[in-house]
């Protein structure tokens, strides 16, 4: 795991870093697969497993995009977040063998989860990109033209990358919400229950829809588009973790 952070820190030797990240990706993929095999189910039920999965897809997504965008600064972000997630996940109680709640005893349960988590990975990267954009814009504004500034991706790339990430994440979240409600119908006999998790995922969806609207329909690329990315990510955090911490609603088994 520490290899991941090294990969993240060293943007100078970015080729090695991405190789290392790719190796980490494969290793983690194997680990997740083993988990699944061990537990005889799709291992993304509890928080630790979800974090693992996000961490995995985060690096995967970044590496997929790396060839097109070449932004090592974001690679550092992706791998660092990824590494942190692994650390957090491994410190959480791993209840792999815990008996599943009846509601979860179906492989179909995994579909909304996986799609939502994929969406969150995309949004996380979009958020990273938005932060990088904000820093770069700030440095350009204040005329700090130095080594760090030169290593950060250009505004144009950061903007396009974020857009790309949202355009991957958004359909995933949409799919997640739809399949989620279909599944809710079979599990709880109701498509939509307005429980906090559902509500917040809807809010998240709306924010990113707004972002896409700003980008596609009004073709704007400015501070507001960027702010929406940051707000959107806060909603992701609330949906994903905050709701569980508040401890109410139907989705609360997810610990």
């Amino acid at each position: 795991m520490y290899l991941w952070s090294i990969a993240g820190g060293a943007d100078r030797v970015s080729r090695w870093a991405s190789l290392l990240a790719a190796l980490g990706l494969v290793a983690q993929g194997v680990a997740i697969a083993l988990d699944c095999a061990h537990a005889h189910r799709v291992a993304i039920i509890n928080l630790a497993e979800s974090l693992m999965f996000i961490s995995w897809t985060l690096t995967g997504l970044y590496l997929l995009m790396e060839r097109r965008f070449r932004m090592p600064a974001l690679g550092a972000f992706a791998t660092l977040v990824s590494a942190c997630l692994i650390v957090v996940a491994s410190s959480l109680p791993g209840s792999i063998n815990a008996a599943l709640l009846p509601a979860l005893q179906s492989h179909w349960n995994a579909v909304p989860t996986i799609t939502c988590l994929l969406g969150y990975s995309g949004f996380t990267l979009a958020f990273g990109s938005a932060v990088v954009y904000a820093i770069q814009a700030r440095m350009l504004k204040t005329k700090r033209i130095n080594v760090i500034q030169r290593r950060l991706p250009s505004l144009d790339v950061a903007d396009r990358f974020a857009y790309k990430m949202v355009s991957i994440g958004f359909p995933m979240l949409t799919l997640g919400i739809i399949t989620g409600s279909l599944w809710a119908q079979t599990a709880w006999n109701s498509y939509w229950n307005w429980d906090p998790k559902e509500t917040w995922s809807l809010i998240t969806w709306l924010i990113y829809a707004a972002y896409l609207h700003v980008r596609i329909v009004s073709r704007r690329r400015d501070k507001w588009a960027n702010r929406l990315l940051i707000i959107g990510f806060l909603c992701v955090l609330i949906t994903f973790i905050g709701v569980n911490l508040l401890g109410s609603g139907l989705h609360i088994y997810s610990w």
Partner: protein
Amino acid sequence: MHLVVIGLNHTTAPVELREKLSISDGQLPDAHRDLASRDAVLECVILSTCNRTEVYAYTPSRADDEVIIEWMSSFFSVPAGDFQPFLYSRAGHKAIEHLFRVASGIDSMVLGEAQILGQVKSAYAAATAASSAHTLLGGLFQQGISVGKRARTETEIGRGAFSIGSVAVGVARSIFDELKGRSVLLVGAGKMGELTATHLTASGASAVLVANRTHQKAIDLAERFNGQAVEFSQLQSAMISADIVITSTGAAEPIIDREMVLSAMKARRGRPLFFVDIAVPRDIEADVDLLDGVFVYNIDDLQAAVEAHAKERRAEVQKVEEIVRLEVAEFMIKFRTLDAVPVISALREKFEDIRQRETDRLRDRLRHLSREDLELINLTTRSIVNRICHTPMIQIKDYAGHDDSSEKLDMVCDLFGICRVETPEENPPDSVQASNQGDKKPS
């Protein structure tokens, strides 16, 4: 053997002298041929730029430095006394280090500039064309070129902007990434503005729009850029399509104000707009910079960035010196073994010669011996020679790895009456060896 660089540069010689002693690219191969035709010059490479003229040479001894100075004097038709006080001369590992520093750009007037590496390459190419660089200087220059590349990839010595124009390009890249497809609006026909626009188009920016109060000037300038002239009154609409605006008018008052930019930005839908204001007094009102998505760089900002970059590069010199140090050490190993090779082979040759003569003489005297016995004598003498040679050979190779190798190798040569230079006329005549052989044999 003697590896030396003799030359002058911007720190040692005034520009008038450097001009007199410079060689154009066209003359370079001839200059190499001319210098290499001197008997004492075994190999040579001549590096000539506007800031330096240097002769790298491989000669039999230090005394041959005079030959190089004499050649310079005759080639440039300048009396030696006129330039000799400005010359520096570095030998052995200092010469190697010098080339590596030069190739890395840390010996340049503008620290880390990239041109010098190209000039080192063309010097080497000219020497190869004139076949004046062989094993030693060929190897030295190849490594020098790779050191230059290494310094630039492994450190920041060659990074950053060297001029206002390149700062503008750097900032533009940080905003727009690729400049391909981006358009430049040049306002005013100032020289500096034109230069900056040239920088930008050379870096990929495609379209150029030119606006000037005197429209004819705008048309002329636009022609030079293959661009388009726009009416001065159309500035605002031009700002909608352009991504980079360079202003360099002589106007006393700012010509672009907040309102103009604000409405242009609305039409641009937030796409960033980059202003390069080279005019003094400024052409763009100060509060334009406060607008969102607008980046205004005036001459002071650009100048400050050039300074900052130069400072960053200065901080990298240490790292480059370290690379140079390592590379010199690496080359020295090759260089020194190269130095020892002729000594070892000369020594072997000499011993074998002695052995051959003595066994021949013995064969004449001991005719009664059988063929087998004679063969045995042959084998035994050979083994004696090999055993005697063994330790000295190892020692000589070992000398090659140390700083005082030259003196030690000289001593070895002295001791055994061999000469280290393989030039034909200096090969030791057989008679000399023959007179020595009696003394050496008993050892």
